């Protein structure tokens, strides 16, 4: 069986999914796929009446087809992965709905690629050059990821600069204090510290 959340292939005694950590929910024989990965899943029926659901595995860009037939399920071939912008995809859905009254065209946009996740921000913070490059490369196709990486890079650089400036000022202050006290005690009391 497969994880309902991310599509990872599970062993029979798995209680949590090794792919995403969500609990494993066994499928009842007559259950229909519902409410998963909202906004990504599409259902369509073929002539024989078996329902297939296309589910995108979040963050991986992988898609699977689960076919429920007599309560059995299996992973079918990957359907066509088409990378189109989200607006165009929504337009297509709308126009197909009007034309045929069904939803789903067998195409989906790989939102998994532009999750805008904080992970890219952290990577950008640790390696600002990488963050800058990712920002420039992704700013058109994957704006959310680009923003995350770019903000991370900026924050990383600012943090480092502020840290270095503050430490330097601390050094100046401490030494002025030390040498000031040293000078004063020498002048006033003739003591050398």
């Amino acid at each position, binding site marked *: 069986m497969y994880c309902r959340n991310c599509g990872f292939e599970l062993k029979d005694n798995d209680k949590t999914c090794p792919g995403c950590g969500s609990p494993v929910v066994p499928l009842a024989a007559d259950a229909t796929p519902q409410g998963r990965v909202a906004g990504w899943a599409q259902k369509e029926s073929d002539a024989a009446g078996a329902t297939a659901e296309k589910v995108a595995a979040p963050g991986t860009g992988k898609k699977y087809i689960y076919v429920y037939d007599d309560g059995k399920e299996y992973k079918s071939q990957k359907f066509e992965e088409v990378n189109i912008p989200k607006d165009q995809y929504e337009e297509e859905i709308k126009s197909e709905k009007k034309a045929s009254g069904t939803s789903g065209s067998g195409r989906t946009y790989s939102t998994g690629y532009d999750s805008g996740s904080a992970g890219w921000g952290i990577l950008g913070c640790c390696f600002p050059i990488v963050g800058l490059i990712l920002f420039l490369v992704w700013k058109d196709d994957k704006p959310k990821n680009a923003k995350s990486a770019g903000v991370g890079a900026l924050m990383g650089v600012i943090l480092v600069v502020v840290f270095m400036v503050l430490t330097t000022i601390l050094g*100046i202050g401490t030494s002025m204090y030390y040498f000031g006290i040293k*000078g004063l005690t020498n002048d006033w009391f003739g003591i050398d510290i």
Partner: protein
Amino acid sequence: MKDLYQGDNRAMRACYKWLPIFCGCHQRADRSFFVKGQQMPVCARCEGELIGMIAGLILIFFVRPDFWVPAVLMVPMIADGLIQNLGHVESTNVRRLVTGLLFGYGLMTLIAKVAILCFSYGWSIGEGIIN
């Protein structure tokens, strides 16, 4: 929020609350260690990093490696994470702990060395002003 610690010890409760936030840890059960059935507050990787950072903070008073040493020590964890995410080869908890240890030590040593450099520079400026 998962409630991993059910006991009464207030210090432990504080640990379980703040350590994951500080580390940005996912607290995944399959990637954490268990002691007597109790899951650790942070995952194996974060545990390694924490121990490494504390070790770095202490050791910097005794050893001052060149800059390339801590930089190189940070690479294994990054490689482990990248291979796991992009290569889809699952790492192991021990590997996460060890690479995290090296990374934490390297990071803290880097930060400490930079701090020492900046502080010394500031010190010499202050000395020049007073004298």
